[in-house]
């Protein structure tokens, strides 16, 4: 599993992942924080319902898609974790109606 070999950033960000509290370093992505917490599988694919997780960590592969603050299909490697965020795995295709919150 991933471990912190450099630990110089302040761990002051706390977000919610499917009910669990995850601590993230200031400025790091949702994907990095979850990988550090030993989560590898971020979603189930829409075609064959197979598990996928972060792959490129630079925003080009779209395999780390998650539901973040009610918005489906967000790239977890591109979203900086902030306190109070609600994060969940993406199951299959995006649901249009779950998008209640209106993130600016």
């Amino acid at each position, binding site marked *: 599993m991933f471990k912190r070999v450099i630990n110089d950033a302040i761990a002051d960000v706390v977000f919610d992942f499917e009910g669990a509290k995850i601590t993230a370093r200031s400025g790091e992505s949702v994907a990095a924080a979850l990988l550090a917490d030993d989560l590898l599988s971020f979603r189930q694919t*829409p075609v064959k319902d197979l598990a996928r997780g972060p792959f490129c960590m630079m925003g080009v592969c779209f395999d780390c898609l998650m539901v973040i603050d009610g918005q489906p299909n967000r790239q977890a490697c591109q979203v900086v974790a902030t306190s109070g965020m609600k994060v969940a795995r993406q199951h299959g*295709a995006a649901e*249009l109606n779950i998008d209640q919150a209106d993130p600016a």
Partner: protein
Amino acid sequence: MSTSYDAIVVGGGLLGSAVGYGLARQGLRCTILDEGDVAYRAARGNFGLVWVQSKGIGKPIYADWTMGSAERYPEFSTELLDRTGIDTSYSAPGGIHICLNDEEYEDRVEKMSTLTSHQNGRFKHEMLDRKAMLERLPALGPEVVGGSYSPHDGHVSPLYLMRSMQRAFVDLGGEIKNDNRVLDIQKSGDGFSVRTANENFSTARIVLAAGLGNKALAPMVGLEQPVRPVKGQIIVTERQAPFLDMPTTHARQTGEGTIMIGDSHEDIGFDIRSTPQVMQTIANRARRSFPVLSKAKIVRTWGALRVMTPDGLPIYDQSETMPGAFTAACHSGVTLAATHAMVYAKYVADGQLGRELEGLSVRRFDV
């Protein structure tokens, strides 16, 4: 030396593939000559509606021809599935045209009654008020005042339709020859000799189904083909969980879950770029119709060129000076695919177009 065929279809788009499949289905030894990978392909920009309620308003001949194809679609798509195992995602839950204000609604009432008057009750539709619309499509937005519903309408994946027709064609012994842009067609004995950039062919019958390319090809067989490009732009979203039970004129959810949104008409020649300004207009209308689409993510936009005739109706002709040569042009390659394969191809095989197509000859433009 040249390879010899019973029939050559020039153009491997939706029209050419349907005709090619129809001819192979008649037992003809047939080839489809097509261009390369980046030809201007109307087929790739198709929206995928099998649509009756907007076609042939004021033109009964076209309304009949369209209705005939829609009626053949269930049999046609089942036949393709049986032959190829490819599911074209065809379904006909009926279709809806959305009106965003009273003016659009009144206009629609008039159009639907015109269409009804053409077909002696064969065309069925209902005008729906806002409440009735919401019963069918709960995701509609507050601006929607009403619309029209017709049970004849449906949709299909234009890409899988094309793939299945080509697969069935190849399985029946047909050959698809890419990178074979036709340069010359000559009368030769009882048939024709055809020269492309790469090869020579001879054939008893030839069908020109090359879309906008027909304009240059038709004179080679003594016909005219006054077609011009009209650009249509389309937006497609990521896959979404099902939310739209039936197709509408401007938005439909595909079998894969993506949402296709169109449509625009720009009369600007050969140009298939997607322009941000037009896309914005399309997105706006979609959002007014279905506010829930606001958060859907667009993955692709594109423009493709429609094949437009002077009056918007298809053109079908057979050459008088060079019997055995046919031309066909239309912008409804999806809706008319069933009839092209099951009816029109028979006419070509018989060497004689059906009488119902007389009114769709290019001669209608001679005044």
